[in-house]
């Protein structure tokens, strides 16, 4: 999929400024930058949720997973009904049921969760349900906007593992957005750094993290919280 010259404006304010970015099939492109840098606006444009100018080629079915798993599931729908919303084609009841079970299985959730309501689930489980719902539409691009930042560290690892297994096992292409470079580094094949609406640096993960070319990338690298260090000297 190729994004070319994409611009998103809100009134006179330009949130995304002529961004060009390629997401190769079966790859995860990580998008990192501070809040307000335009990451979410880019994600929403790619997902068709906000108007834009420019071209988006090669992605017909884009699905998005949102940051807040407490807001992205209808509190009055069972998990099964939410996931079934994305199931395409005219299936009968039993077919739907089986498909929901399969999708829950893909995100490592037990099938009996289908009858539960979101309030009975933990944040990590909800985020898996949101991913399962998106997968039901068989997307050719999945956009994940800060999907671990509302989660506890103890479940973040499991969701990141899920993201990687979706790529490895389903060949899913993904735009993975986060403000945490360590998280982006872990899941992405390609990293793009966004600053004030523009992509200031993009390249293979090892290269961007190992030999950052832009000052802003270096600032981001330096700011990654580290267990041992930094602020005590």
């Amino acid at each position: 999929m190729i994004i070319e010259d994409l611009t998103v404006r809100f009134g006179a304010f330009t949130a995304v400024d002529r961004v060009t970015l390629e997401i190769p099939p079966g790859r995860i492109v990580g998008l990192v930058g501070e809040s307000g840098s335009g990451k979410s606006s880019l994600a929403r444009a790619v997902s068709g949720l906000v108007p834009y100018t420019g071209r988006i080629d090669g992605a017909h079915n884009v699905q998005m997973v949102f940051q807040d798993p407490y807001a992205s599931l209808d509190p009055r729908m069972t998990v099964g009904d939410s996931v079934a919303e994305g199931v395409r084609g005219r299936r009968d009841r039993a077919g739907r049921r089986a498909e929901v079970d399969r999708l829950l299985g893909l995100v490592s959730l037990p099938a009996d969760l289908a009858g539960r309501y979101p309030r009975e689930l933990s944040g990590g489980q909800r985020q898996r349900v949101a991913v399962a719902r998106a997968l039901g539409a068989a997307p050719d691009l999945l956009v994940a906007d800060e999907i671990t930042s509302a989660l506890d560290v103890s479940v973040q690892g499991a969701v990141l593992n899920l993201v990687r297994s979706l790529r490895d096992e389903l060949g899913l292409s993904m735009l993975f957005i986060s403000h945490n470079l360590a998280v982006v580094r872990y899941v992405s094949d390609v990293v793009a750094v966004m600053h004030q609406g523009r992509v200031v640096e993009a390249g293979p993960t090892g290269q961007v993290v190992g030999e950052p070319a832009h000052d802003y990338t270096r600032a981001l690298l330096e700011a990654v919280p580290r267990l041992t260090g930094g602020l005590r000297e």
Partner: protein
Amino acid sequence: MKPRLPRTPAAVAGAALVAAMVVLAVIGPPIWGATAERIDAAAILQGTSTAHPLGTDSLGRDLLARVLVAGRFSLALALAATLIGGLAGIVLGALPSVLPGRAARLITGAVNALVAFPGLLLAMFTAVVSGLGARGAVLGIGVAIAPGFARLTQTLAATVAGSDYVSAARMLGVSRRRVLTGHVLPNIAEPLILQLTQSLGGALLGLAGMSFLGLGVQPPSFDWGRLLFDGFARIYVTPEVALGPAAAIALAGIGFNLLGDAMAKAAARTAPAGKKRTAAVPPDPGEPDPGAVLEVRGLSVAFPGGATPVRELSLTIAPGEIVGLVGESGSGKSLTAAAIGGLVPYPGTVGYGRLLLGGRDVATLSGKELGTALAMVFQDPMASLNPALRVGGQLAEVAIVHQGAGRAEANRRAVDRLGHVHLPDPAATARQHPHELSGGMRQRAVIAMGLMATPRLIIADEPTTALDVTVQRQILRLLREVTEETGAAALFISHDIAVVGGLCDRVMVMYAGRVVEELPVARLAAEAAHPYTRALIASLPDMDTDRDRPLASIPGRQPAPSDVGPGCAFADRCALATARCAAERPPLISYGEAGRVACWEVK
């Protein structure tokens, strides 16, 4: 879980009144119907007597019986008017979310105009146009109620329509109609039903008013309003004849309003109220530590119903030291901070063996002393800043109230403190309102506010969680700098063990309300002993994590405070758990250099 009606006097009275009205509507006509219609030429226009407690009307009919019989008709009319108004309003309010843009705007505009129009005029106009009588009155009141319902429906629907789950449904190709029936309507039903109940009382009063104005029910039919209309003509001669219908109208109106209010409150309420309970008094805490800024022994926070989110927590902080409190959400970190600052929300209760700030029991400190000795920084800086006031003024207020400083001196100090936290143009910032600052600048301003006094302790509860990593780093630096300069101690709370590890001197790990491990930060990465601490560290990706291997993760979830069993709270998720772990809780014992750990498997 259905919200339950609270047992307040108002709720009970409302429910009782409404129940009485319903009973009256059912049994009134069959019992008193004949009496109410019996014409008695010998008893025309009488006042109170034993035979006729409320007097008689111009045909000698008993007014008490007529009031009791009119209940059914009055309530039925009110119900009809409410249903008409509610239905029309909900349809009008929901239409814009399914119609194309132009039509939607037209309807929205019309509703807005109608909402601004006086309801009574609308009702009278409709009633006159559609003909005098019960039908006209019901239509009139219905029309008067409708715009309010339309507006409420619109607002509620717009909130739901803007939610992430509706965005997700749209991306999945779910049709507009399915979005409306599947997402929007179910999520707005509850507030609308509440509004319907409250409207019933209003409709009842409105209809009585219409009848009273002669625009409503016409003879020979009668409702309470009509009876009041007839009785009112005789108010100077026999006032008691107006009393019955007036009381009936008032009681019914009050009943529906009270019940509606109580239902709305029950729906909005989250924490159940209950009887007060004090946390168990912990064992003797031993001798106090004279060098500590903060010394906590055996701190518990409990809520009615048996939930104890903080249990027997002990911690000590020395001057200039930053202690990190880390754990997943719900582990009790914020309540610990709240307990130290005396901010535990009602109906929580705090118990402790010792809680000394600067050597004095916090319970004996005045609000002023506590405010001077303790600075609190929260995740949301707006929790500490008043959006209506200039930043400088708010800071100056602290010096004026707590230190008795003069206005000019306080202002000067405010600008000085704002500069101290590295705000680039402190004088300009002082003149700004909080909303003009970025999240990071606001958090600096809050820290500056804490520095207006000379705090002995700074408690920072997730102060950087809402900030970017770059800004986070600046705020962490600032905290470090401030404690080094002023010698203040700090309790730094975070769910992110990397942040805690990067900033603090000592780390305490909390799980399900208890401290499970404590150790100097230098030993955190390599020597953490508790399985939970180790799992937290392993599940965290950093810049050196092997990208070809899956991250560690912790299966399952932390038990809720009311579900903590007798054993180790981590047992369900622990790879090392044995039978003993589930049955018996491991005590927090000394381990390694300056460390403590609570785990049976750590030897």
